[in-house]
């Protein structure tokens, strides 16, 4: 399971986070800065907008990867941030980036206030070699807030594959938000992806037409356990599901603990923390 560094006989093996089973081959992407054009802007929640950026040098990304967005002031000052791609690689020629507007956000604030259809936007990508899903292994996806962006990309890619008659491994998303209004992609998660999604709302009861009611409350073991069990994420051995966990630091910290409490081994969990960066 681990690979001792060559040329060092007699030394104890070191633990390897990305054991060969978990490693993702590089895409070989050429990733220069390019100026795309915004062709669509959608409001997702009161604070989140999706920007569709048409790219002349588009290349397929892996679900979970991200793009950098760079802003340049007239005096040459630059600011850049990375945003996960929400659109699947099966939707070629453009990337959709969902941007949560952060309080005092230097880049997110500008994107929300100043960028509309027809505007140029400088981007570079795709990046990311760890928090990516290749489609060949079952996955339990756990996300909160804007942490749902890369996970929605996985669901969308999987749906596009099966629409094209290609099979991919089973996945299940546990999607958290404070309220349904703040839930990213709420209509899609409770519509097309309802069978593969569990919605967890911390601040309001979630009952509605066609939806079993869940009382308000933070993520709980029972939200995770049945799906972890069904997908084979419990126990070790490296043959079970991968867990992709994405969200704020408080959310991911709590979810890491819960996942391990229900029996998911720590080394099955890939984490991406979205900070105010």
């Amino acid at each position, binding site marked *: 399971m681990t690979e001792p560094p060559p040329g060092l006989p007699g*030394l104890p093996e070191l633990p390897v986070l990305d054991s060969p089973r978990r490693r993702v081959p590089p895409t070989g992407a050429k990733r220069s800065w390019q100026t795309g054009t915004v062709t669509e802007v959608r409001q997702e929640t009161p604070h989140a907008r999706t920007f569709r950026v048409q790219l002349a040098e588009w290349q397929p990304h892996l679900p979970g990867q991200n793009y950098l967005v760079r802003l340049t002031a007239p005096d040459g000052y630059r600011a850049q941030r990375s945003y996960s791609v929400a659109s699947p690689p099966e939707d070629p020629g453009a990337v959709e980036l969902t941007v949560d507007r952060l309080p005092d956000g230097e880049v997110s604030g500008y994107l929300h206030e100043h960028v509309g259809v027809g505007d140029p936007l400088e981007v570079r990508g795709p990046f990311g070699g760890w928090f990516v899903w290749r489609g060949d292994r079952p996955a339990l996806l756990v996300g909160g807030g804007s942490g749902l962006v890369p996970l929605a990309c996985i669901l969308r890619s999987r749906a596009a594959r099966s629409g094209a008659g290609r099979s991919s491994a089973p996945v299940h998303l546990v999607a958290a938000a404070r309220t349904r209004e703040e839930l990213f992609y709420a209509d899609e998660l409770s519509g097309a992806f309802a069978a593969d999604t569990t919605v967890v709302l911390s601040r309001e009861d979630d009952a509605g037409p066609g939806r079993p009611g869940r009382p308000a409350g933070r993520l709980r073991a029972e939200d995770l356990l049945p799906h972890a069990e069904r997908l084979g994420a419990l126990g070790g051995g490296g043959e079970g599901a991968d867990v992709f966990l994405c969200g704020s630091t408080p959310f991911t910290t709590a979810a890491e603990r819960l996942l391990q409490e229900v029996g998911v081994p720590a080394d099955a969990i890939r*984490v991406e*923390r979205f900070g105010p960066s």
Partner: protein
Amino acid sequence: MSVFSEGFSGRRGRDPRLPPGQYDVGDSFPVLTAEATPNVTQETWSFRVDGEVESPTTWDWAGVHALPGSAYEGDIHCVTTWSKLGTSFSGVSLDVLLDQVGVRSSATHVLAWASSGYTTDLPLADVTGGKAWLVWEHEGRPLSTEHGGPVRMLVPHLYFWKSTKWVAGLRLLDHDEPGFWERNGYHERGEPWAEQRYAGD
């Protein structure tokens, strides 16, 4: 060619301590990790230096505290573009530990590792000569678990993924061996002033 972003002036001042593409995160200290936070305590933590050394040695919590202390005051830079300016850490200089194990002349690189399996590689010259530490205090308080406590590495002149959290050892090598992020898309050295963020930058 880059385009100007109409109406963008940038929110913050241009502090000369900020490398290109970085912004000042102020008093906050974002947490970024790739793996579940391991359960390492002062009682269970240890640090082993092995590989191309004369005397492989393991220190525990009391052992590193018995060494002469050292502090860093200055800036740190995360590849995700935040920098934290004028912060401080204290612990012990890696020079002290490397002096005790006797580094062989064959050693050229080090691989720092954590019990989670996280690794990062550095040229030996980047962790010697007063450039790297093991630290257990941040701004006068014990280093929290989410920031790599009880003990993390600190290599502040490189992007912060080189400053291994929950560090458990340093393996000296006679060659370079890419670490976790270096295998997964990031630059092999990570020098902030040269903006060495991604492989090939």
